[in-house]
């Protein structure tokens, strides 16, 4: 089973500081976007749990829709980040 000999360490990568800084910037922007959405969810549950009973669409209440949306948005932003970081300078 070639490739499964895990004895030696992989050589350290050569880093491009400009690319690293760019990726960090993209990461921070996407993090802040998600933080705002997550903060809204936590705040509503904590201070206005009654609003979570509203049923805006598909016969589902806001609690379920917002919860699912947070999971889906995390996956979508992860893909966006991957795409942004793949683009060359």
């Amino acid at each position, binding site marked *: 089973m070639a*490739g*499964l*000999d*895990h*004895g*030696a*360490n*992989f050589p350290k*990568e050569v*880093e491009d500081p400009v690319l*690293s800084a760019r*990726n*960090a910037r993209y*990461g*921070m922007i*996407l*993090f802040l976007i*998600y*933080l705002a959405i*997550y903060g809204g*969810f*936590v705040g509503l*549950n*904590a*201070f206005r*749990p009654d609003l*979570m*009973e509203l*049923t805006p669409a*598909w*016969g*589902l*209440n806001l*609690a*379920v829709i917002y*919860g*699912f949306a*947070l*999971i*889906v948005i*995390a*996956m979508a*932003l*992860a*893909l966006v*980040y*991957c795409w942004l*970081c793949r683009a060359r300078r």
Partner: protein
Amino acid sequence: MIHNPSFLSVMIFGGFVAFTLALSFYFAAKTKSAAGYFAAGGQIHWFVNGVAFAGDYLSAASFLGICGTIAFYGYDGFLYSVGFLAGWVVALFVVAEPLKRLGKYTFADALNSQFQSRGITLAAGISTLVVSVFYLIPQMVGAGSLIKPLLGFPHEVGVVLVGVVVVLIVATAGMVSTTYVQFIKGSLLVLFSGILTVMILNRGLTVDTTELANSPQTMVIKKDGTKFINGIPQGQKEGQADLRSVGHLSKLPGGKTETGPLGPVAYLAALQNSEVVLWSKKETTSAEGDKTMTWTPQPTSGAQVLKPGNSPIFKGLQKDQLFARLDFLSLMLALFCGTASLPHILIRYYTVKDQTAARLSTVVGIATIGVFYVLTLFLGLGAMTSGRLDLTDSNMAAPLLAKSFGETLFAIISAIAFTTVLGTVSGLIVAASGAVVHDLLTSVLRWDLNDHEKVRIGKIASVVVGIFAILLGILFKDMNAGFLVGWAFSVAASANLPSLVMLLFWKRTTKQGITAAIFVGLISSMVWILLSADTFQKVYGYTADQAATLAKVPFSQPGLVTIPLGFLTLVLVSLITTGTRTNPASEQDTH
């Protein structure tokens, strides 16, 4: 409840354990160096690492704890799912690439990459050990819960069995075998959770209005340990009785008695418009020391079940209690910040070759974990309405849900759940043994160890941590796995995140600031937990009223106070000591 083990369950379970051990022994012959043992030589493919992230992260708390909380109380368990997944956003966008760039074996490596400070290594090593042990407790409790219905052994035997198997996995091939066990477990867990969800939707919802299904149940535990169910001795022979399994709807929309197969959205919408029978528990102890537990059916609207605030943990949200709201905010903050602070997750970044692989594996991890957490709501609600819930053990909700579809699926799901525990505990023990060998012995105590000795001592450390985990798993046997993990996240986020974030984003961070922040975050969060009402009630054994009076802190989850305290400590100490230490970033530029 008394559960009877089946031959099929034992065979499938034995097959899983034999396979994981065979894999470990196979890799053992190939893993000789410290780099191989603690970090798989940095040669794990990013996709394998991504799924292994899921295998590492989706612990007993996620599978057993969350499903159990949803099955017993509804939406509140799903709040954990959202918080656990959200934490990965911090890991991907903030931590993944810098951590891979800065570290080699342990979390301490990254923190110390620019300082070479023994203080930082000591603090980070101790923090890794404490967080890993906190996280180990719920895994071992989950293992004990599983083994009872699966093999018919008592809780303690299950805990010992997991301990022994995990120590064998880790002590043979370290991170390599751990990675592949986690990869297999992550894949199987998501696959079979998906299959189970499809079966739940295909079964739809049915109503049970029989008198028996809606009758209260009582269990008396005498001082000598004998148990009586509704006044009759507990057992399965003639003249004996056992608790009934529960979980049903009392009404469906439009007066229907069953829905037939439903789509995912239609399933949730139908449940929201139905009436579900939840069970309230009352516990009293007589002057003679006999304990009486009474469960009473509580018909509850589906709309109520699918909104926050039904569980004992979050019930204050619906009662306009400020401290209950702060407690909730504190927990959600800890879940958000905790993932990127868990040492056993962070060390997975060292098993891939570069920052790109670290990023890609995190994305795969988020996708795998996200799909699973979406499924948890269906699994939990499916268990809630399966008619198979064990009122005495919320951790058993998911395996017993599988049992409602037949013995084979129960055997497979139980074996996967057991592998779930194996995968996570393996990762925790690798993290802990790495901290002992690499951080505490080599860096702090300056033991001069060659590669072979590092691996040998790492294996000894694995055995010691494993024994410790077994003891804790027995000690905390009655607690919900999901609830316990909340504590581990709080301690990890308070101790580790401030240092990690400030090191990356604040150039005036000093080594004294990092060391102080770790110790202050670690100690303050642990002290807060030990003095909280939850601990007085669930660990020290006081009643809820006594615990509320005795508690020394206003709410139980520490994160809201102790995470900012960690940041504040780091900033203050760094500002005070800035004259003794030059800016690490600028120093790096001059080299």
